[in-house]
C-alpha cells in the first residue's frame, strides 16, 4: 500500500511558525532570567514579531490553499496577519513597564501574548470550520489566562472567570452552529459548503437557519454585540490594561476577520435574506453602546462601551454585503485598532505605584501639566468620534458610504446620529483634561517603550486620516477574494 502524503505547504504558515518557535523558546528561557530582568523576554518577543512581520511582507501577493483546504494564504489573510502583528507589538511595548508596576512581570505574560497572536493570525486564513474554530480557541484560551493575570486583584479574577465562562459558552454555540452546518452540507470546508448550497439551490433550510442563528449568537459574544455584550465592561475593567487593549483591538478584529469568511463564503450573505437579523443587532449595538457610555465614570468601562458601539458600526459593512462594505470593514478596523490602543496607552500611563489611574477623574488637568498628552488624546478622541482628519473618519466615511450605496439609508442615519452622541462622552474626558484643576500627586509612568507605542498610535491615527490611500488600496485588494 502506498503511503498517503499529507498536503502540506509550510510556506503558508511560515509567519506563525516563526512566532510559535519564538514563543516556545521564550517559555524555555523564562526560568533562567531573573525576576527583575523579565523585560528582556519582552524585547525577545518583539524580535519574534518583527521577524514574523518581515516574512509576512514577503508573502504579499501569494495565493496558496493548503492543509487539505484548511488554510489559505491570500491577501486578505496577510492584511489581517500584518495588523495582528502590529497590535501585538504595540501591546508588548505598552506592557513592559506596566506589568512591573502591577507586579505581574512574569515571562509567561509575553509567551501567552505570542500564542494569542498565533491564534489570531490563523483565524483570517482559516477556510475550514474546524481550523477556524481551533484557531479561535487558541486565541481565547490565551486571553482567558491573560485576563485573570493579576491574581491578587479580585476584579481581575472576576473578569477572568466571567470572560472564561462567556467565552466557553459562546464557543459552544459556535460549535453547535458548525455541527448544524456540517449536518446539512456534509463538509466543513467553507468553499465546499458554498458550492454545495449553490448546486442544490438551498437557500433557507431549517438546519441552515439554525446554523446561522447559532453562529451569529456565538460571534455576537466574541465581538460583544448587543444583546451579547454584558461580559465586556466587567472583563475590560478587571483585566490588566494592556490585556484590555488586546481584547478590544485584537480579539475583535480577529472575530471580524473570520466572520467575513464564514458568512460571505459559506452563507453567501449577499444572496440570502439574512440582513434583517444583522440590521437589528447592529442598530442595537451602536445605540446601546453609545448611550450607556454616557454615564460611565471609569475610563476602561467607557472604552468598553465605546468598543461595543464600534462593533455596531463595523457590522454595517457586513449588512451591505458588497465589495465596498467589506473593504470598509477592513479600513475601519485598521483605524479602530490604532485609536483604541492609543486611548488605552494613556490609561497605562496614569497607572503608577499609588494610583490605578483608570477613573475619568484621574485625567483631571492632565493637559495643563502635560500639553502634549492633551493633544494626543484629542487626536484619539477625534478619531473615535469620526471627525477629520483622522483614521476613524476615513473608516466611517467608507462604512456609511457603503450603507448608502446599498440602499440602507436608515442604517447610515442611525450610525451618524450615534457618532454625534459619542462626541459627548469622549469630549467630556477632553474637558476634564483641559478645564479641571490638576490632581496633586499624579505620577506619569513614562517609559521609552510606552512613548514609542504612544507615538506610533498617535502618528498612525493622524497619518491614516491624512493619507489613507495605501490602506484603502490594500483593503480593496484584500477583499478581491470575496468576488
Amino acid at each position, binding site marked *: 500500500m502506498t503511503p*498517503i*502524503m*499529507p*498536503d*502540506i505547504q509550510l510556506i503558508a*504558515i511560515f509567519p506563525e511558525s516563526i512566532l*510559535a518557535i519564538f514563543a516556545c523558546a521564550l*517559555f524555555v528561557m523564562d526560568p533562567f532570567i531573573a*525576576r527583575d530582568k523579565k523585560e528582556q523576554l519582552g524585547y525577545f518577543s518583539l524580535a519574534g514579531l518583527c521577524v514574523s512581520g518581515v516574512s509576512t511582507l514577503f508573502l504579499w501577493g501569494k495565493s496558496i490553499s493548503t*492543509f*487539505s483546504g*484548511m*488554510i489559505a494564504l491570500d491577501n486578505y489573510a496577510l492584511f489581517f496577519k500584518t495588523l495582528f502583528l502590529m497590535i501585538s507589538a504595540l501591546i508588548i511595548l505598552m506592557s513592559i513597564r506596566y506589568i512591573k508596576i502591577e*507586579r*505581574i512581570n*512574569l515571562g*509567561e505574560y509575553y*509567551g*501567552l501574548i505570542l*500564542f494569542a497572536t*498565533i491564534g489570531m493570525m*490563523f483565524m483570517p486564513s482559516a477556510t475550514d470550520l*474546524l*481550523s477556524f474554530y*481551533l*484557531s479561535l*480557541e*487558541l486565541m481565547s*484560551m*490565551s486571553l*482567558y*489566562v491573560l485576563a*485573570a*493575570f493579576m*491574581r*491578587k*486583584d*479580585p476584579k481581575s479574577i472576576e473578569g*477572568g472567570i466571567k470572560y472564561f465562562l462567556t467565552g466557553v459558552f459562546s464557543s459552544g454555540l459556535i460549535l453547535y452552529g458548525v455541527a*448544524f452546518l456540517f*449536518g*446539512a*452540507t*456534509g*463538509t466543513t470546508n467553507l468553499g465546499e459548503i458554498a458550492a*454545495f448550497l449553490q448546486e*442544490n439551490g*438551498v437557500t433557507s*433550510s*431549517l*438546519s441552515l437557519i*439554525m446554523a446561522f442563528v447559532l453562529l451569529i449568537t456565538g460571534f455576537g459574544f466574541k465581538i460583544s454585540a448587543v444583546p451579547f455584550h454584558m461580559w465586556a465592561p466587567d472583563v475590560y475593567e478587571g483585566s490588566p490594561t494592556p490585556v484590555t487593549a488586546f481584547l478590544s483591538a485584537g480579539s475583535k478584529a480577529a472575530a471580524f476577520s473570520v466572520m467575513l469568511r464564514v458568512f460571505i463564503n459559506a452563507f453567501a450573505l449577499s444572496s440570502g435574506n439574512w440582513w434583517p437579523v444583522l440590521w437589528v443587532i447592529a442598530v442595537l449595538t451602536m445605540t446601546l453602546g453609545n448611550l450607556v457610555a454616557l*454615564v460611565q*465614570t*471609569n475610563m476602561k468601562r467607557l472604552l468598553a462601551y465605546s468598543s461595543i458601539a464600534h462593533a455596531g458600526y463595523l457590522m454595517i459593512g457586513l449588512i451591505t454585503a458588497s465589495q465596498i462594505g467589506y473593504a470598509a470593514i477592513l479600513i475601519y478596523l485598521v483605524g479602530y485598532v490604532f485609536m483604541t490602543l492609543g486611548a488605552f496607552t494613556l490609561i497605562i500611563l496614569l497607572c503608577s*505605584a*499609588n*494610583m*490605578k489611574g483608570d477613573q475619568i477623574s484621574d485625567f483631571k488637568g492632565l493637559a495643563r501639566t502635560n500639553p502634549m498628552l492633551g493633544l494626543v488624546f484629542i487626536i484619539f478622541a477625534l478619531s473615535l468620534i469620526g471627525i477629520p482628519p483622522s483614521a476613524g473618519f476615513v473608516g466611517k466615511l467608507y462604512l456609511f458610504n457603503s450603507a448608502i450605496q446599498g440602499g440602507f439609508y436608515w442604517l447610515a442615519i442611525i450610525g451618524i446620529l450615534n457618532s454625534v452622541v459619542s462626541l459627548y462622552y469622549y469630549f467630556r474626558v477632553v474637558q476634564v483634561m483641559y478645564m479641571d484643576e490638576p490632581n496633586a500627586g499624579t505620577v506619569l509612568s513614562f517609559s521609552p517603550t510606552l512613548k514609542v507605542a504612544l507615538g506610533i498610535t498617535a502618528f498612525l491615527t493622524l497619518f491614516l486620516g491624512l493619507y489613507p490611500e495605501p490602506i484603502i488600496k490594500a483593503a480593496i485588494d484584500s477583499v478581491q477574494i470575496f468576488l
Partner: protein
Amino acid sequence: MTAQLLFFYFGGMAVAGAVVAVFTPNLVYSALSLLMTFIHIAGIYILLNAEFIAAVQIIVYAGAILVTYVFVLMLFNPEQEKRYFHKQYKIGAFLGAVVLFLMVFAGFKTEILSKGGPFTVEYVEEIGHTRAIGNALFTDFIFPFEIASFILLVAMFGAIILAGRGIKKPKGPGGRVDLSSRRKAKEAIVGER
C-alpha cells in the same frame, strides 16, 4: 431492534448519569456518576461502529480524566456543597427549556441534505478502523491536530500560572494595597448611579 434497545439503554443511562452528576451534593458520587456517563457514551460509539473512539473514550475520559478529578477531590477535600437556588433561577430555567426545545426540535427537523462522506462501511472494512482514523488524522487533519496541541500547551501554562507560580503579594506600605478603599470608592460610585 436490539440495536435500538441498546441505544435507548446507553443513551438513557448516559443522561441519567449526567443528571446525577449535576444534582448530587456529594462530590464523590458526582464524579462516579460521571464515570457512568462516560462508559455509556462509549457504548453508543460501539453501536455506531466506532470501536476505536469507544476505546479512547474509556481510556482517556473514564481512565485519565476521572482519576484526575478524584485526585483533586482527595487533595482538596472539599466540604459538601449546599444546594441553593440562584436568584435568577427562573430566567435560567426558562432559557434552558427554550434551548432544550430548540435542540429537540432541530434534531427531529434537520434534513441531511448532503450525500455521505468518503468513509463508507466498505472503506473502513477494507483498511481497518484505526488505520482509517490515523490516515485522516495525519493527512487531512494534520493542521487541526497540531493546533490542538498548542491549545493544550497554553491551557497547561495557564493552569500553572493561575495556580500561583511566583506572584508575590503586594508589600505593605509603599505598595498599592488599597483594595478595600478602591472597593469603597466603587460602592460610592454605584450609589451615585
